[in-house]
């Protein structure tokens, strides 16, 4: 890399956010609206100050990231590559702020600006947080139970031909039905709304995971079992040390498919009958036409689901590290 290019990249990265913050400060609100101030820990802020604060926080964070990444060849290359993108992102935030909040050229109240969306957190951050936790709890119960059942039945189906014969057709048919179709039954048969939703998520995770797990187990090359037998491996060894490790790549691909299903089911179920959760919060906000709150919930979902997906990916690349270099993976390491 050419000397002197890296500082330019750092400046480029943070300048978009700083620009957005400065313009937010300088450009006046076209319509004269008095902005309310809220207590944030020990200081009072209005939504624009809060928004600028977030922007500056982002700028500082990326500046520090720039300093940390400087030494490491790989992450510093990534940083330089992303610099133009970060800059355009900052400019985009400015444009959005200008069209959404400042001039209100966007149709209101449907398309609020970024400062308005952030105002939801000032107004009821605690409430949003508790709903986020509720969603997370629903997701964790549903996904983990569903994954456990799915991997369990998948192993049984893949290992025992008899089980395959009787259970696979059932799985095949029920697997096609979207889990939310069972909602009326779930809500009437299961006493609490929480467990009804967990049940729906379990269903939507169970079937895809079970069917790919079964494929992975059943598709284990015969020669590997023979190798295990000649090495002295009994049936348990062949199952736990040959078939299951061999099926792990498929199990993980099933889990990531199921993960996406689980998000959909979670939000839909919450919107249709939960006393909490981000879906519930969206519904609540919609009733009062508080679309900025809807966007706030969507923003949290984007963050929450990205984090969950990233955690799953990390576990996957850790467990399947033997595949590294075998399959083409986007940026190694």
């Amino acid at each position, binding site marked *: 890399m050419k000397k002197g290019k890296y500082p330019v990249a750092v400046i480029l990265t943070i300048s978009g956010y700083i620009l957005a913050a400065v313009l937010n400060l300088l450009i006046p609100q076209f319509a004269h609206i008095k902005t309310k101030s809220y207590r944030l820990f020990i200081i009072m802020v209005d939504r624009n100050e809060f928004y600028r604060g977030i922007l500056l926080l982002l700028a500082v964070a990326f500046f520090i990231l720039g300093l940390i990444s400087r030494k490491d060849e790989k992450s510093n290359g990534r940083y330089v590559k992303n610099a133009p993108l970060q800059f355009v992102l900052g400019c985009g935030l400015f444009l959005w702020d200008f069209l959404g909040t400042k001039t209100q050229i966007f149709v209101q109240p449907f398309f609020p600006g970024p400062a308005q969306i952030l105002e939801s957190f000032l107004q009821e951050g605690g409430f949003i947080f508790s709903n986020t936790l509720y969603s997370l709890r629903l997701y964790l119960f549903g996904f983990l139970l569903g994954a456990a059942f799915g991997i369990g039945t998948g192993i049984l189906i893949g290992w025992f031909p008899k089980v395959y014969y009787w259970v696979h057709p059932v799985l095949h048919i029920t697997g096609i039905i979207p889990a939310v179709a069972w909602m009326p039954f779930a809500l009437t048969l299961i006493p609490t709304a929480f467990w009804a939703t967990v049940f729906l998520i379990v269903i939507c995770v169970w079937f895809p995971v079970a069917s790919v797990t079964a494929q992975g187990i059943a598709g284990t090359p015969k020669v590997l079992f023979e190798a295990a037998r*000649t090495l002295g491996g009994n049936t348990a060894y062949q199952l736990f040390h040959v078939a299951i490790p061999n099926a792990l790549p498929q199990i993980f691909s099933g889990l990531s498919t199921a993960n996406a299903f689980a998000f959909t089911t979670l939000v839909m179920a919450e919107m249709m009958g939960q006393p909490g959760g981000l879906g519930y919060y969206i519904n609540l906000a919609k009733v009062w036409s508080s679309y900025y709150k809807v966007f706030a919930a969507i923003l949290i979902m984007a963050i929450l689901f990205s984090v969950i997906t990233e955690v799953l990916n990390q576990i996957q690349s850790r467990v399947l590290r033997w595949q590294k270099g075998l399959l083409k993976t986007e940026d190694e390491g």
Partner: protein
Amino acid sequence: MKDETILQLNHVDRVYEADGISVQALSDVNLKVKRGEFISFIGSSGCGKTTTLRLIAGLDQPQGGKIFLDGEEIKGTDPRRGYVFQQGALFNWLTVEDNIAAGLKARHVYQKNRHRIQEYIDMTGLSGFEKAYPHQISGGMAQRVAIARALINDPEILLLDEPMGALDSFTRANLQDQLLELQKKNNATMILVTHDVDEAIYLSDRIVIMTPRPGKIAQIIDVDIPKPRQRGGTEFLMLRRRLLEKFDLASADPQPEYTI
């Protein structure tokens, strides 16, 4: 000790049924193998050499006849009969050292024997690749892992099913030398299935020639050339010619080529 019979095949028959047609894969195969001996099975495809090896391993059962190891009838697989598969059949999710240790873990003797893993890694020339995964190493190394994996179980007999079939000729020659060294070190009995006449001559004490339809032993040839043998030495070439004639592959006289 040298003349003690370790393996005995008595009137072994094997018939395969496929789509209603039965194929006599093996017919009345008789063989005695002495301890420490190196035997090669050669023959064209379908002559039953791999079938014989699988029967000895216990991966398959004969319909007629019996196979004995140390006077004990073979009923199924046993780590005392190590097997090296054509394509290695390594566990892709395990590192080189974990692949080699697989047999120890399968037999639940890992803790007692873990110190021996390094010994087998060194013996097969795999030092430095302990933590590599199978897809990161070459075909020749993968076969050496497969051999080490079988040998660490201290097999009384090592069965090798064309382990060098997919390797280039230099790697192959190298691995053949290592195999001989391993045999000397471990005083192991080895049975090799191969297509390669040179390989059979270079390695074997006796060569078993098999013919197809039905698969049976046509002839057993003693190789009396002292080891280490010279590839391309006079005796080597004479035996080679003799063997090729058996397969009608040697022309009576080399035809001179004329160019104008």
